């Protein structure tokens, strides 16, 4: 079965519908599926719910779908870098569900693993716990969080083979594996598709079983906060 597609548009063909739930990888602007997000913008799919740790910045990442009002709801842990997001949220146009970062990652992982709910100490005694089942284990209180299953996962990896085995690079791995796992369908964009047999099987980060479609493309890979140190003069 062919998993490799020629463009992000082709890779998403037949998968998009209004009101759908999409899980996206990335942390800040690092390791985000920038080509697939652009293709969703061009497709004009509306009323989207996104599970994504962040919401991009105004003109990059999920931010480009906020500009076109394609997003109905975000499930995120931190959305601080996006003025348009805040404008839509404060005016009531955009729904926002804050999840603690680790809870969000585990909700994705669990959903992909067939685990409909799990218990965690994270958020006990805070607003996050309101309305959730509390349960004691060994004298400690935990709350139940639900696994997430998305209609579609969009992720970014460094390298893939044509069967969808993925390798990520440095901290660009972040939410990509759990996001990929929780989708009924997962589309991955990569910097390079390498010949079958050229990835070391011991070093695959995400097996191709989780990846249904792959597209290779050029990535801008924008840096959000460029921090450096001065070279000491020798």
């Amino acid at each position, binding site marked *: 079965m062919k998993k490799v597609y020629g463009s992000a548009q082709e890779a998403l063909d037949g998968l998009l519908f209004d009101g759908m739930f999409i899980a996206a990888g990335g942390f800040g602007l690092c390791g985000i599926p920038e080509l697939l997000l652009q293709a969703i913008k061009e497709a004009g799919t509306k009323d989207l719910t996104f599970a994504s740790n962040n919401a991009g910045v105004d003109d990059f990442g999920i931010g480009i779908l906020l500009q076109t009002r394609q997003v109905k709801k975000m499930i995120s842990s931190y959305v601080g870098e996006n003025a348009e997001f805040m404008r839509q949220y404060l005016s009531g146009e955009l729904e926002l569900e804050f999840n603690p970062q680790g809870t969000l990652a585990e909700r994705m992982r669990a959903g992909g693993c067939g685990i409909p709910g799990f218990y965690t100490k994270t958020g006990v005694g805070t607003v996050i716990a309101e309305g959730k089942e509390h349960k004691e284990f060994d004298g400690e209180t935990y709350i139940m969080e639900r696994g997430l299953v998305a209609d579609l996962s969009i992720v970014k990896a460094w390298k893939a083979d044509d069967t969808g085995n993925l390798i990520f690079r*440095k901290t660009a791995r972040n939410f990509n594996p*759990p996001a990929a796992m929780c989708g009924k369908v997962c589309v991955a964009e990569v910097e390079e598709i390498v010949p079958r047999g050229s990835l070391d099987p011991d070093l695959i980060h995400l097996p191709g079983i989780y990846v249904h479609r792959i597209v290779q493309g050029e990535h801008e890979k924008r840096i959000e906060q460029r921090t450096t140190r001065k070279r000491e003069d020798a």
Partner: protein
Amino acid sequence: MPWDRNQMAERAAAELQDGWYVNLGIGIPTLVANYTGDKEITLQSENGMLGMGPFPYEGEEDPDLINAGKQTITELNRTAYFDSATSFGMIRGGKIAAAILGAMEVAENGDLANWMIPGKLVKGMGGAMDLVAGVPRVIVVMDHTNKHGESKLLRECTLPLTGAGVVDRIITNLGVLDVVEGGLKIVETAEGVSEDDIRAATEATIV
């Protein structure tokens, strides 16, 4: 003289033991890395890295290598990368020995508030709730009072909590206090600061 930012960071670094895996928050906690001396401290960045190195030299920034504050950083010869679910697995699982983080308010029962001010722009809790719930030793580093001169060490937090009963030790510009049965206990004062000075600047019960 109360401690300045760097002295607070240096005092916080003295809390860390050789071999520990540690998560440092943004602000003064980040400075703690400058004072770990000969101890082998492995810094975790919750976006998926153990063994966080310093900022890169100009021209060597890598967009695929950032910390949880989204700043460009470098790796070390012992660095390991992993995904966010694994990262918070080690946090939730109690594998990270200590978390050092800033706060808006700490209550005498160890409640911590550092993620939102009602009515103001809410950016989100990021990984803070996971860290304070999962890491066995939570150390807060913050100024003793806010910009209006009011105590940030309170009987009860007024802001929405990040975690309930999670703080173990507080390092402020005036000294070091532990959360104990019945309130806060002064364990150290900054040079030239008396216990009475701390009592006068603290709303929380001092035991």
